[in-house]
């Protein structure tokens, strides 16, 4: 954590600002309620459209609501129903598979950033290219992959034309294959952000420590493993929390455009299930219960991953 605080943006300026701020207040500038006027509009908007809805999400989770009539309380019925909901359990299982892929989701951008940091030939171009999918909407990527991975699409016809037709598949219509394809696409679509974050971390690694390790005769691998890795840990933690959240929330737009949860329900994820229950089946109270369970699971999984990373350090 020491490394983390050293990397904070100008920590000195921050504490400085606080001290002189007090003096300024003593001099009577920006007095009283007027200062709050700067903050109030933002706080008001957040209160009405974020904080109040959090509470309302909890309340609605205990109701039955079809979106037309007013919601009426049903106690824990929604949560009891969740326990026996086959599609929800399947969605959870798919999210578990996504969570299981998180180590890859961490390792790929880390390794790529390390390669760019080594200034491999053409690194400037690569850094640019890897960022391209990041700026595109998941809707665009979903539509693109829908075309490219179609049965008679470019991928299969390319495989055919180079004699690898044995490898061509129904990428989007094979219950055992489509989920891995979707996970692969999400990792591919987001790794560019990870690369940037790890590059920022790598440029903050204390070069003196690395040089000292070199002088002591450590190999490149040993330096990566024992010096750079530990210094990067706060960044790795940060990225991990981001993708734990993403693994439960980032799939909706891609699945909505690419598979609609199919074939069957083989690519249903919790976030897609929530949408489908609410706006497909008109069970908005039930969907709210899914949302609450989703938040609890995200908290739990984040805690487990951060715990694992910290535990490995000691």
């Amino acid at each position, binding site marked *: 954590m020491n490394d983390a605080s050293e990397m904070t943006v100008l920590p000195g300026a921050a504490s400085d600002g606080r001290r002189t701020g007090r003096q300024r207040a003593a001099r009577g500038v920006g007095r009283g309620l007027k200062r709050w006027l700067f903050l109030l509009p933002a706080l008001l908007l957040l209160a009405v459209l974020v904080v109040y809805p959090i509470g309302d*999400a909890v309340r609605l989770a205990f109701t039955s609501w079809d979106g037309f009539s007013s919601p009426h309380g049903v106690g824990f019925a929604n949560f009891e129903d969740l326990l026996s909901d086959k599609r929800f359990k399947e969605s959870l299982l798919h999210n578990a598979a996504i969570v299981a892929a998180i180590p890859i989701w961490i390792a790929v951008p880390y390794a790529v950033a390390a390669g760019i940091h080594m200034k491999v030939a053409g690194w400037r171009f690569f850094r640019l290219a*890897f960022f391209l999918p990041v700026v595109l909407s998941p809707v665009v990527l979903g539509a693109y992959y829908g075309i490219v991975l179609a049965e008679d699409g470019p991928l299969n016809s390319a495989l055919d034309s180079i004699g690898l037709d044995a490898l061509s598949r129904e990428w989007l219509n094979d219950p055992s294959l489509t989920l891995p394809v979707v996970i692969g696409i999400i990792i591919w679509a987001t790794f560019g952000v990870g690369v940037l974050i790890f590059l920022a971390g790598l440029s903050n690694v204390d070069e003196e420590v690395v040089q000292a390790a070199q002088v002591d005769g450590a190999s490149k691998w040993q330096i990566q493993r024992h010096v750079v890795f530990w210094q990067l840990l706060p960044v790795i933690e940060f990225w991990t929390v981001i993708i734990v959240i993403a693994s439960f929330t980032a799939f909706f*737009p891609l699945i909505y455009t690419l598979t609609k949860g199919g074939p069957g329900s083989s690519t249903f994820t919790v976030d897609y299930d929530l949408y489908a229950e609410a706006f497909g089946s008109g069970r908005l109270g039930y969907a709210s219960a899914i949302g609450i369970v989703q938040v609890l699971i995200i908290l739990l999984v984040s805690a487990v991953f951060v715990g694992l990373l910290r535990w490995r350090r000691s």
Partner: protein
Amino acid sequence: MNAAADSPAVRPRGLGRRAMSRPGIGRMAIFVVFAALAASCIYPLLFVASTAVRTSADYRAAPGALPTSFTSENFELAFSQMHIGRLALNSLLVVVPAVILIAILACAAAYALVHLEIRLSRVLLLAIVSLMALPPTVLLIPIFKLILDVGLLNNRLGLVVVYAALNLPFSIFLLTAFMRSVPVDLLRAARIDGAGAVRTLWSVVLPLIKPGLMTLVTLNFLFLWNELLFSLVILQNGESRTIMVGIAQFQAQLNQNYGVVAAGLLLSMIPPLLIFVFFQRDLARGLTAGATK
């Protein structure tokens, strides 16, 4: 990467780390993998562009190859059937006001939190930042209900305020980092010269945090232009539908007419690509802002 793992002890200290031949092979391997990965990142653009300008017969003959017969029909159909122009305008009518609203609110809030001595400013900032970890899907139902109850369903204003609220926590967080880099002496000087808080923000602080503001605006524009979920739920009628919703629904309906979909995709990619080309540095700055915290 571990090509130099053996015989580290014989290596002269701090010298000739790259002089050995084997790391060269490692670098070659990395280069090859990177080249393949880069190709997968650039191909979507090439594929969409080439599919958009070719006839569907030409596409069917060799989907992955370069086009041989060209047509502008796909673009005409994208405008007449997909109403891509209308969709893009609808998106702009939501995204631009939302981005402006976010910029104003976040600037004022970050300024107050960092530079105006506000009681509990640290706690407030922490509370705002912790909202960033909230998965937006959990807010979907209650926000839908709220918008429905106040009669803003299918009203652009509804989506504008929802977008603004959802992106405020990150935006405030981002701007506080830039606010902290403003020298306090400058603010004090402005005060001594008789400038009030608003004046100081406008003519001293804003010019200094221009890079932060650019980052904020480009990032929010990109997020919101690309957003699907809340737009899908709040603007449900065809009249005000935004571009990503329009594309998602159109590509699901129109079986096999890839050329038109590709033309629509290509047009929808123009704003993100412009941002990519001209504001890449601002984007990168924003996306890594949290990492060094």
